[in-house]
């Protein structure tokens, strides 16, 4: 499997996504906003459709739409504070609706389908470099804002009261999430990416000793999940997104049965 260049690229991209997905997932799970990545992932799908129709790189248009979608969620949440989940639901519907309509105009349906459940083939060099750059940026931002993200995850209201620039940190986090989800859509697919964000953290929470250790364990689970999923995809010829997410679910069930403490 390692002899094939396309597989080397797929594994490299998979590894990068698996490294950064839990960074987003930890905050998302602990802030109880696990649905947000799903909504954003659906929005990236309409970005992909726009890219394919306009003959632009779909990864670029996916990134633009993901960030725009997150900003929209932020605005909607301010106008609908008591119904924040409606904003998320609205965005998810809008994203999938637009993608559904636009998909009728795409000549090469296979290219579009590759973004639904992911694909291990056809990662261009330019995309690989973009993904490396985004991964490095997300990791850097996470390290720089680690303690601010911790404070906001723990108690956003009190973080604001104590003088932390909550709006700035939230904006940066949203940006990190948009970037991560759009590059993840390339390999694991938009329909499945949110599972990769949420499930390794959820599994890791069963063994939580601290915020930091939960994160490290989640990264390990995520990387192992991704490698097993991509290997299965290669040898069995199944779609990588499906393989990865089923492995993630199996890990979750194992962690649940090993430790039945409530999380």
């Amino acid at each position: 499997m390692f002899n094939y260049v396309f597989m080397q690229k797929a594994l490299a991209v998979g590894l990068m996504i698996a490294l950064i997905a839990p960074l987003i997932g930890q905050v998302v799970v602990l802030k109880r906003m696990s649905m947000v990545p799903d909504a954003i992932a659906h929005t990236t799908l309409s970005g992909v459709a726009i890219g394919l129709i306009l003959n632009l790189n779909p990864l670029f248009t996916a990134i633009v739409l993901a960030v725009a979608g997150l900003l929209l969620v932020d605005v909607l949440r301010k106008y609908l504070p008591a119904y924040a989940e409606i904003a998320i639901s609205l965005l998810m519907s809008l994203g999938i609706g637009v993608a559904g309509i636009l998909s009728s105009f795409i000549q090469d349906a296979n290219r579009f389908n590759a973004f639904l459940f992911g694909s291990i083939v056809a990662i261009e060099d330019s995309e690989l470099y973009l993904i490396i750059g985004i991964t490095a940026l997300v990791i850097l931002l996470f390290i720089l804002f680690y303690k601010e993200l911790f404070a906001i995850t723990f108690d956003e209201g009190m973080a604001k009261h104590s003088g932390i620039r909550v709006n700035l940190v939230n904006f940066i986090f949203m940006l990190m999430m948009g970037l991560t989800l759009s590059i993840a859509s390339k390999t694991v697919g938009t329909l499945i990416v949110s599972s990769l964000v949420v499930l390794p953290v959820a599994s890791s929470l069963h063994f939580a000793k601290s915020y930091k250790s939960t994160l490290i364990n989640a990264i390990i689970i995520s990387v192992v999940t991704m490698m097993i999923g991509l290997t299965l995809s290669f040898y069995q010829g199944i779609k990588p997104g499906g393989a990865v997410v089923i492995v993630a679910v199996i890990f979750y069930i194992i962690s649940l049965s090993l430790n039945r403490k409530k999380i």
Partner: protein
Amino acid sequence: MIALKASQISYAFPSKVLFEDFSIEIKQGEFIVLIGNNGTGKTSLLKLLAQVECPQSGTVTLYDSQGNVLKDAYKRVYVGQNEFNLHNAFCGNALEIVLSAYTPALGLFKRPSEDQINTAKEYLFMMGLKDYLYTPLSRLSGGQRQRVFIAKALVNDPEFLFLDEPTSALDASFSSELLSLLKHLQAQHHLTIVMVTHDLQLAKEIGERVYCVGDQDVMLLSDEDMAEELAHAHRHESGIELKHV
């Protein structure tokens, strides 16, 4: 020296006026206690004084030890009521949570120093949590969580403490230890404290001024009032209904 000045603050829910045109000046190092029946607005008043919320009219200004308007938000710490009931799924451990109190003071990109980590540990020891430094919050009891939050409130050398029923989940011996610690901090560090409590006896012992938050007004209780309240509370065993309300 004046530490807190609230001028003509008013606050109302859509269905009810909690208080109107209430003014108070609190001196540096003073210990103020707010009492009152359920639903009269003690917590709302505390939140306004702590600048957690803004009054619908009027102003609340806090001053630092030099008499200037307080700039560092983290110097005024608010510990909410029943916070220990929240965070049931939070995986951060006691030490991580206490250390997060340093975040606003450190500014972006910096980590707590060794000294700060040691101070955080000392406060957790003081709160009787020596064996729980590395236990996730989700596995601590309500009382233990409340002690973690108090350690977090104290660790970064605050000038103001706003506490909403800080002893509600603590057992009697720990409550009294906490109150002696607060008294000590107040005396040694000129900490200004405003505390909400249901415990009249406690209010009498610890409060230098005790305010009763009643329907639509807030009144200062004299020693005689307090004695009368206590006698009244003893007659009505629940001890909840306050006469001056």
